[in-house]
């Protein structure tokens, strides 16, 4: 029979370090997904996953028995990813900026024909979207990913980012406004 999370936590705290491996396996995919969405980079997401589970282990004594381990490790992962994005130097992911010629983008988007061009185009749109995302601050980016892609509520975002609900809400608003401004040239010919 599968052990529940609280039993595993008790075993780990009683000295059975290897029991933690089961928790890693159980929540790995969720942690990796949110880490990847926030950092936007596979290697960074791998680092965040390792850091989150390490911090989770080290802080296990503070984990309350009433809490849900999945939610707890998710919040740690969001924080690690936020710090990761914050530390990342500006401009690292801006190499595609040269391609972001608004005039060309307008012509390309108007072409709705299927085929290799269309495929290439959707890749370009993704790239432009990532460029626009990289212009957000770490907090705005994280709040937006949690709201828009992870479908978390403002309260959950505020708890994960350890900020006031109003600050979380404002971060989402600013992110949406900035993204709309950045992606505006794409829409002109639609």
């Amino acid at each position, binding site marked *: 029979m599968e052990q529940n999370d609280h039993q595993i936590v008790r075993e780990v*705290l009683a000295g059975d370090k290897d029991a933690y491996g089961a928790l890693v396996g159980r929540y790995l995919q969720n942690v990796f997904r949110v880490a990847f969405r926030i950092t*936007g980079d596979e290697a960074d997401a791998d680092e965040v996953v390792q850091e989150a*589970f390490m911090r989770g282990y080290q802080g296990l004594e503070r984990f309350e028995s009433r809490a849900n381990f999945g939610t707890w490790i998710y919040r740690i992962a969001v924080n690690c990813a936020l710090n990761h994005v914050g530390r990342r130097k500006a401009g690292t992911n801006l190499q595609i900026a040269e391609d972001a010629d608004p005039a060309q983008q307008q012509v390309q988007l108007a072409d709705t024909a299927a085929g290799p061009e269309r495929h290439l185009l959707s890749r370009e749109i993704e790239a432009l979207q990532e460029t626009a995302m990289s212009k957000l601050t770490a907090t705005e980016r994280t709040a937006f990913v949690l709201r828009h892609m992870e479908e978390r509520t403002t309260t959950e975002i505020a708890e994960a980012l350890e900020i*006031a609900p109003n600050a979380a809400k404002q971060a989402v*608003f600013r992110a949406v406004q900035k993204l709309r401004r950045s992606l505006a040239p794409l829409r002109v010919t639609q």
Partner: protein
Amino acid sequence: MNHFSEDALIEYHYGESTAKDEIAHHLRECSDCARSYAAIVRDLAEISAPATPVRDAEYGGQVWDSIRGSLRAYPEKPKAWWTSLLPSQQWKGFAAAAACLLVIVAAFFAGRFWEQSKKSGNPTVANNGGRERVVLLVVGDHLERSERLLVELKHADAATEAPLQQEARELLADNRLYRESVKQGGDLTLVSALDHLERVLIEVSNEPAGLSQARLDDLQNEMNTDGLLFEVRVLRSRVRGDVERKERGPLQTKGVSI
């Protein structure tokens, strides 16, 4: 006709608006707002989550292997020596009886304490007053430090960027703590100002690109830091007044206080 802001429409789109019905009704009546809302919906629909790379079944093992070596096992908790003297069933019965006894004793003393506190007035009021004074004192200091940071932010250049961000990080941690304390006291004006301050501190401390002059200008405009500076100054002087009043103690006046 009052139109809804972009923020209100974004909030509505994510299903978190407190004025859902009102906005829905307005969108049926007002073509301008309906157009704005349709544009928001369309723009947000275009922003999709990137496909998450697939991680195979071995990934969990790999992650665990990579961190296992750096984790120290928690020390085993030794059992109390006297528990081994009792057979387990007997021990459970003994524990249950002890717990019942403890509850009865606690209820008895709680009753006595309640009787006494009723006779001797309400000493917790005085304790709360002392606590409030301490909170106000530390919040006053915090506002002073924040005021200095906002003034520095106003006149910042590239050379002052690093110490500013460090100071903002320290203030941010304190600010969260004080906001919660003030919130419990019910001072909504102060809570709102600390909330605004927190948003500015988050932006300053988490700014990945550093604080260029352009970013500082953006911050001034987006976060209305001048307005916040004024707010902090006013609140600091008010908090100082509150502390002095609490030090003097309650005024002995007749009539109703306003």
